[in-house]
């Protein structure tokens, strides 16, 4: 009986993995968005601005669908090749921390905006698409929120860019990062990001 159970569980796991791999990029974005917003809607702590809790939510539900190494390479641009594999890893880690902290907090501001999912324009065989959504709220300008999503080697889709009102949150760092690399090399850039993260961390600690 126990064996049967684990066999069933195994098949179920396998099936869900296959399902996840086949999930289209727009379906993925919609599923994760709705899942996260549902949690936010029912969580008084997050609505009250509990940063730690919302960061945890993002880390568990959202981050597995992001490719941070890719995001960091796009943010760094042509200097990316100058970085050693070790530096690349550290850069990606710091950049991830920076983005997660910053934009998780935006979730605590969620009230009752409506998300519109726009039809996906995708050719068969495309491995890089833009999933377009729009945030609508009464009396205010609608905000366009798009995701650059790329197919991985294992067939799953992962987000590598988030574009708010035409502003890529990734490439917006390119000029600043290039300046940092000119001033202090790749290590200088890593140090700047680590420093920024420590400041934010200190603020979070003070709040809670």
């Amino acid at each position, binding site marked *: 009986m126990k064996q049967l159970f684990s066999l069933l569980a195994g098949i179920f796991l396998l099936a869900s993995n296959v399902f996840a791999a086949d999930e289209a990029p727009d379906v993925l974005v919609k599923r994760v968005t709705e899942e996260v917003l549902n949690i936010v809607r029912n969580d008084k702590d997050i609505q009250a601005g509990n940063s730690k809790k919302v960061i945890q939510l993002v880390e568990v539900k959202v981050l597995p669908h992001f490719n941070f190494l890719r995001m960091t390479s796009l943010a760094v641009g042509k200097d990316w090749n100058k970085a050693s594999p070790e530096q690349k890893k550290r850069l990606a880690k710091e950049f991830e921390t920076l983005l997660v*902290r910053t934009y998780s907090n935006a979730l605590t501001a969620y009230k009752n905006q409506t998300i519109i999912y726009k039809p996906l324009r995708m050719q068969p065989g495309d491995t890089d698409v833009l999933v377009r959504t729009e945030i609508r709220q*009464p*009396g*205010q300008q609608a905000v366009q929120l798009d995701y650059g999503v790329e197919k991985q080697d294992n067939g799953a889709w992962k987000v590598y860019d988030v574009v708010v009102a035409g*502003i890529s949150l990734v490439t917006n760092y390119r*000029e*600043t990062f290039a*300046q940092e690399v000119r001033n202090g090399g790749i290590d200088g850039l890593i140090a700047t990001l680590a420093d*920024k993260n420590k400041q934010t961390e200190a603020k979070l600690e003070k709040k809670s």
Partner: protein
Amino acid sequence: MKKMLAKSVVSLAVAACLSGVAVAGDNPNDPAEGWNRAMFSVNEGLDTVIAKPLAKGYDYVAPLPVKVVFGNFFSNIADVMIGVNNLLQGKPGDAASDWGRVLVNSTIGIGGAFDVASEMGMDKHYEDFGQTMAVWGAGEGAYLFWPVIGPRTVRDTAGFVVDSYTDPLWYTYPVPVRNSLVAVRYVDARAALLPTDKIIEEAATDKYAYVRDAYLQHRRSAVYDGNPPREVAVPNGKPSVELKSTPGASGK
């Protein structure tokens, strides 16, 4: 109080000029960086002592329905010139829809207080003369940071002047009513940006550069009505640009 304010503004300006000289820019995409950084600091100072407190007060005092009504009212007036700009950009369909919105919202929407047109499926557009000039082929020119007005490229500064001259709100009489309306619109717009402040503060390692690059990206996207040619991501090295859409062509 007034004296104190004037004093702090002056000292801020001086400090800004000094720091501006110190970081004379070496960024080829921002030739006026020294001047811009100075003006950015002046503006930050003005914002901290005047605009932001006003916006916060307004945000705190005005209940949501009031804010929605104000937002709709100003949006309705703006739709008149948005339609003109759409026509000038060769999009008569969008222009007709914009003016249809004004017609519907000014009547059924009770003088623009309610955005009935959006609920009827007539989408709001955002156009200005800077975008129109871009569609006509004008380059954006250098990036400039102005006190009070904020960031504008050379092209969009010219566009802003034209927009201001053709802004229906400026032709409201009597003058005190006009002035109050313009002031409320400014505060309302600033209040809408309050949540963004915190994000920029946390996201940016260099706030000036972050705001500049966000502004430039946003404007380039606006010229293409939110469907700019996609930068095709190349794993290593320079991203190439793929031209799929033409400026101004509505991507619907």
